[in-house]
């Protein structure tokens, strides 16, 4: 694909829209998460700022913007300030190949999922940088956990997606959606239930959300790798966490839940509805389960998810071979 001016403009516009989506998503999700958490915990949640507390997230972000950036002594300052940026920037790229609707794709990439998986790995790098440069032992422990966790969980995640790719024979996300029908029984989740299950577990672990939020385990490491971040540094981590959550939810919707195809009236609203349903699921389990221990987290991956995903991949390959 030649990088013509039209494509360049298209990418710029797409990136701007993605930034808007990221910020809007964070604002919405902060409110949804706090309200959902409140209802799960039998309390009203935020209700003071604006009608039903709707402006709470806006207030919070204003507070974060206005906060003084406070850094501890003896930090490794280039890395310390680089880490939030490294966390935030790849997310912009990650959204480019996502087909939100039939015509609503920022960039048609043949190896779309490869691009996403490759750049999603940078999230771990930012966690290491943040933990290492903070001159804080909690940060260091959190960073070590983040690395081990994301390295471990990327493998079954890729294996699970690979099974679907074997089956459909494409890495282009738009083609993937077009291969699925509108009704739930025509989605890939029916044909690849195990892959979908493995992917959902890995999705929670990859985004460092409870019960797998070991890198920022509050009761052990106070805030883990971002202990020493305040103001916008923290806000960027926060923003990228929600953006990553939304991204993996979009990938799940595209791969397993039929993307923009719905029972009636195909369109981007289906993608968004499905992705936000998964987001709500992530929020829901966060406020329900206790946290697993670190060795249990890795055991779950290496002893269960990885063999299962290999088995699933092998079965898929055999079935595909026989069918052909």
């Amino acid at each position, binding site marked *: 694909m030649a990088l013509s001016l039209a494509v360049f403009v298209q990418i710029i516009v797409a990136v701007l829209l993605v930034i808007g989506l990221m910020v809007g998503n964070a604002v919405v999700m902060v409110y949804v998460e706090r309200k959902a*958490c409140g209802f*799960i*915990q*039998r*309390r009203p949640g935020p209700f003071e700022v604006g009608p039903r507390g709707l402006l709470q997230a806006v207030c919070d972000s204003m507070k974060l913007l206005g906060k003084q950036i406070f*850094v*501890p*002594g*003896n*930090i*490794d*300052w*280039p*890395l310390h300030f680089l880490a939030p940026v490294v966390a935030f920037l790849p997310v912009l790229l990650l959204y480019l190949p996502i087909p939100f609707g039939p015509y609503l794709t920022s960039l048609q990439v043949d190896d779309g999922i490869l691009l996403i998986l490759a750049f999603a790995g940078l999230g771990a790098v930012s966690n290491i940088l943040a933990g*290492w*440069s903070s*001159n804080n*032992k*909690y940060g*260091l*422990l959190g960073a*070590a*956990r983040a690395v081990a966790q994301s390295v471990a969980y990327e493998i079954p995640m890729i294996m699970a997606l690979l099974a679907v790719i074997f089956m459909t024979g494409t890495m282009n996300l738009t083609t993937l959606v077009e291969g699925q029908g509108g009704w739930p029984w025509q989605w890939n989740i029916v044909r690849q239930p195990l892959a979908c299950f493995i992917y959902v577990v890995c999705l929670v672990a990859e985004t460092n959300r*409870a*019960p797998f*939020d070991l890198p920022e*385990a*509050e*009761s*052990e490491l*106070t805030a883990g790798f971002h202990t020493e971040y305040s103001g916008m540094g923290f806000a960027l981590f926060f923003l990228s966490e929600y953006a990553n959550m939304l991204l993996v939810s979009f990938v799940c919707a595209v791969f397993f839940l039929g993307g923009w195809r719905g029972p009636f009236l195909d369109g981007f609203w289906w993608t968004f509805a499905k992705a936000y349903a998964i987001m709500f699921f992530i929020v829901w389990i966060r*406020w*329900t*389960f*206790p*946290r*697993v*221990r*670190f*060795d*249990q987290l890795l055991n779950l991956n290496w002893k269960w998810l990885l063999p299962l995903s290999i088995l699933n991949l092998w079965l898929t390959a055999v079935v595909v071979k026989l069918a052909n």
Partner: protein
Amino acid sequence: MSGLGFINPFGVRELPGTTTGDFYTANFAQKAQPGRVILNLGPQHPSTHGVLRILAEMEGEYVWRAEPVLGYLHRMHERMAEVKTPQQFLPNMGRVDYLHPLAWNWAYVGAVEKLAGLEPPERAQWLRTLSCELNRISSHLLWWGAFVMDLGGVTPILYAFEEREKINDILQIITGSRLTMSYFRLGGVCADADDRFLALTREFVPYLRERLKMYRGLVTDNVILRRRLEGVGPIDVDMCRRYGATGPVLRAAGSPNDLRRDVPYGTYPQHDFWPATGFPDDCFGRYLVRLAEIESSLDIVEQAVRGLPPGPIMVDKPPKANFKMPAGETYFAVEGARGQVGVHLVSDGGKNPYRVKLRAPGFSNLSLFAEAAQGTLLADAVAILGSLDLVIPEIDR
């Protein structure tokens, strides 16, 4: 740990060979093996609930040596007891352990009564049992919520607080306060139970029993919680004996040791209950013991409401402001939510006690943490710390 050695524009560079931290850290670091990290948890740390400080020598995720540092909440209660008359000192007892204040009320009042030979009337005794057990339930509920929060489950504590609020509402009727209660007086209690109090208590008992069933399904049977607790931090009877640990920690270790039954005081001989034993000696056992104790306390509350006799709530001639204890020495202990709450009181016959020693169960329970946490993962050490049910003001006194 100055990263890759960039010049830091914001502060002084850490010179090699200099020790950082205070006396305790420096002292602790002297014995550390090379290559291990000294991690300082607290005094402001989410899992140390209050101002406990733990120094841990870590190798990766493993805690090889841990040492609690105490004294951040030392308020000289024992000294205050020497310069105040027993009546003046009573409010202090509600502030020693803010979760189970009535046990401390009882321990101090009981010690003075034992020395002075005061015998509170029957109704006062029953009210003491009733309020003390309600208070024990609220203490265990809060522990339950906080413990699950230590394990990363944030929701149960708010459920626990809902129940606790109900108990606070009930106890407020007779004690007049919700947190640092000071209900007991020398020779009785300060307020009588009215119909509203009794009706609310009667309602509350079956309500909490229902809720406990829900908690079992919601939290106790959760597979993640069980994996986090089962087999973690075993504490056997021998270790409890060496450190003087009492209460649920000792009972989970397998010893049916309960002062309410072993050294009966108040109306406990007339109640039908049995110390909760027969659980594993790990964190999960200590979790189950406390939940079982809530149920046995509910039984006692039910019996106490049913058997509450009529009559006065105060001795005929309550001690006046110029009350003088006879010279002598006494020790009175009650079973608090965390273990043996004891008051050793020495009087020289004056208005104020000559010396008062408060035996806090949390102090002994905490002292075994260093041994129990040896060689565990950091997350397990946090679980063990939580399973000991520490209340820092009580430990530091």
